[in-house]
């Protein structure tokens, strides 16, 4: 690959050559003492574009946004000590959401390791529970093999983060660089095929079921199995619900897509799972935010569970038919097998499909508009309509109410067009993830829908967006509160609003945007909304739209305003029975 074997070079240069050979085109990071030699290698020249973040957490989330937008491994680089600890949150986020990430951290010199040296921290130790694997490199000869293995582990099997901690003297050492063709990992054997018998069992169960529902999650996106999922849905006429993490794996506008189930999912999606006689879980993991009370989740259903990770199958919910293996292969084989089995006749499921349609028609997402108050849902709807005619749009979000409204109201018809923090629920994820997504897909329109609480956690990355010429639009649904926490305080803590009021006015987001070299807009009512959003989309640089919305608006799935949101999990049993 353009490098003769045994090229004499420094460890630091070897890191860059390895990234190049792995096909990395962008890396995100911040230099510091223990990683300085590697940044010197960047200065000497590389085809890897380095995006300079303002905080290592930002760099990590950018790498995640890059990975989720591109399907490639994201790379974040930081120094030892605080550089490494600042990466812990993005690593944990990537761990929970199975985002492939290689984090490279500098470490103090080998001779100083273990002495509590300046900026020394046990990076591999601190991250051990939240990485697939990690390496501390103290011998430059091991460096190429470790990097080769790191990328391999990050991207194969269930994807996720790895950490490579490189002692400073290793970066400075000279050696004969040769990048290995193969990895030497005898203990790493992710499944690469599926059992034909299990596929057959699954197809028979599908044919026999009267009320099947596919429950698709983020694993479908990671497995690049969206085409196969859609083919299965179309050919077998199987209805599906799609989780927050899976949004976009099946077009939202597909007639058989019933959207997100869960705590703030629709009533019809939750009811579909609840009344099903067969749940076909595909790359989803029965997260508590989806299932609610586990004993009441899909009580009458048999479960088929497709997953690349054997440990997820049967972890939360027993699977009558476990299918461990790559989803792309499994779903393609399943569609074929379902066709073969269906030739012998299938149970009729027209009444079920009619039932789902009836629920969808009766219980759409809705909210009450009020005079003089701009509802956050209105802003999301305006964004959805504005984006409607754009081919390549990527949404990112933070975590909280705005995230749930984005999930409910945005229409995502393409894979990798909705990027969010699901498992860890990392406030502050949205803005840096948007910057990373823009770096991955420069032609895309990248819009971060954020909350004011989230935005303030990582808003210094506006400098990165401005100076690295990675223009994104951040729409802050500014209700002046930590909205989701406020909602819980209102509903479950007798309206004691302890420490959740942030105010609409401080900071002035439009001025803050201008201070960072971005365009700033303030929207105080519905009339100003469309113009401001249009202007932001067409600003030609990064823009922030401060949308001042109703501070008291709560997230509800289907229940009328004022009822407890969690009641939706209870509703199906009662009302379906009635």
């Amino acid at each position, binding site marked *: 690959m353009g490098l003769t074997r045994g090229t004499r070079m420094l460890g630091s240069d070897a890191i860059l050559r390895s990234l190049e050979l792995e096909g990395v085109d962008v890396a995100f990071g911040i230099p510091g003492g223990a990683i300085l030699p590697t940044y010197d290698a960047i200065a000497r020249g590389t085809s890897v574009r380095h995006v300079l973040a303002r905080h290592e957490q930002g760099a990590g989330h950018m790498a995640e946004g890059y990975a989720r937008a591109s399907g490639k491994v994201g790379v974040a680089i930081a120094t030892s000590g605080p550089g490494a600890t600042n990466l812990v949150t993005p690593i944990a986020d990537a761990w929970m959401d199975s985002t492939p990430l290689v984090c490279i951290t500098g470490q103090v010199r080998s001779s100083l390791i273990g002495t509590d040296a300046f900026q020394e921290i046990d990076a*591999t*130790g601190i991250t*051990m*529970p939240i990485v*697939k*694997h*990690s390496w*501390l490199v103290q011998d430059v000869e091991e460096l190429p093999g470790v990097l080769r293995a790191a990328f391999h*582990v990050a991207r194969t*099997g*269930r994807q996720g983060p790895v950490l490579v901690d490189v002692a400073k003297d290793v970066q400075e050492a000279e050696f004969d660089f040769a990048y290995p063709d193969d990895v030497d*990992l*005898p*203990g*790493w*054997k*992710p*499944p690469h095929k599926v059992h034909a018998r299990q596929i057959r069992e699954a197809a028979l169960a599908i044919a026999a079921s009267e009320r099947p529902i596919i429950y698709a999650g983020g694993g479908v996106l990671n497995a690049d199995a969206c085409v196969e999922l859609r083919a299965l849905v179309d050919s077998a006429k199987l209805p599906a619900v799609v989780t927050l993490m899976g949004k976009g794996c099946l077009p939202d506008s597909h007639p058989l897509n019933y959207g997100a189930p869960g705590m703030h999912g629709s009533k019809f999606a939750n009811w579909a799972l609840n009344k099903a006689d067969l749940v076909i879980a595909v790359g989803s993991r029965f997260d508590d935010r989806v299932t609610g009370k586990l004993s009441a989740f899909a009580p009458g259903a048999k479960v088929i569970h497709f997953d690349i*990770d*054997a*440990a997820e199958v*049967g*972890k939360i919910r027993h699977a009558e038919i476990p299918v*461990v293996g790559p989803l792309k292969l499994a779903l393609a084989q399943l569609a074929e097998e379902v066709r073969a089995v269906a030739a012998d006749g299938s149970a009729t499921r027209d009444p079920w499909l009619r039932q789902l349609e009836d629920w969808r028609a009766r219980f759409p997402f809705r909210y009450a508009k009020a005079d003089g108050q701009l509802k956050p849902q209105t802003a999301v709807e305006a964004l959805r309509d504005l984006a409607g005619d754009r081919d390549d749009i990527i949404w990112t979000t933070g975590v909280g109410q705005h995230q749930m409204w984005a999930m409910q109201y945005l229409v995502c018809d393409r894979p990798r067009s909705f990027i969010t923090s699901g498992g860890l629920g990392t406030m502050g994820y949205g803005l840096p993830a948007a910057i990373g997504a823009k770096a991955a897909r420069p032609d895309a329109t990248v819009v971060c829908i954020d909350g004011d609480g989230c935005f303030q956690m990582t808003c210094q990355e506006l400098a990165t967006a401005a100076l690295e010429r990675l223009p994104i639009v951040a729409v802050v649904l500014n209700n002046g509160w930590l909205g989701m926490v406020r909602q819980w305080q209102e509903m479950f803590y007798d309206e004691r609003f302890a420490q959740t009021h942030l105010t609409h006015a401080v900071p002035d987001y439009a001025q803050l945007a201008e201070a960072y070299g971005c365009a700033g807009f303030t929207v105080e009512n519905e009339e100003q909304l469309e113009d401001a959003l249009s202007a932001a989309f067409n600003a030609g640089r990064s823009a922030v739209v401060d949308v001042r919305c109703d501070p008291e608006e709560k997230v509800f799935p289907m229940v009328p305003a004022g009822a407890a949101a969690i009641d939706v999990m209870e509703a199906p049993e009662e009302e379906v029975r009635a």
Partner: protein
Amino acid sequence: MSAHTISVRLENKPGALARVSQLFSRRGYNIQSLAVGPTEHADISRLTLRVDCNEHSLEQIEKQMHKLVNVLRVTELRPEEAVERELALFTVSVSTDKRAELVALSQVAGARVADVGRDAITFEFVGRPDEVEAFEELVRPYGVRELVRTGRVGLRRPSAGGRTTTPSVQV
């Protein structure tokens, strides 16, 4: 809940043992004993873990351990199919007049005298874990001053048939 013995073949790499043990604490499983040492291959260690958990947790433990990059193989050692042994050292207080009696008793029980002091004897005992416990009961009346156990180690019995290294989880 019941006790299970799990045998793990592990790459002999820095941090490998820490990864296994942190997985147990992270997922809330309690390790009763853990013994680790080299195997017939210089670059492979074998861990014998004793855990108290239900069948569902055991399956989770095995599956989660399989995901660790340094873990080569995870096998449950079922009691009827495994040879299990443990070594224990006991320092027992004993007065001069009772010394002969204690030594005679220990020899009957199959222990060896490892060291003799003025008012105490250290015994070494190797056997099945239940035999170790029986020996402890035997010498307890004399006064056990200090006690250390290696934790059990185990191998599948060749006489149990089948491959001696059959993985319990297919991945």
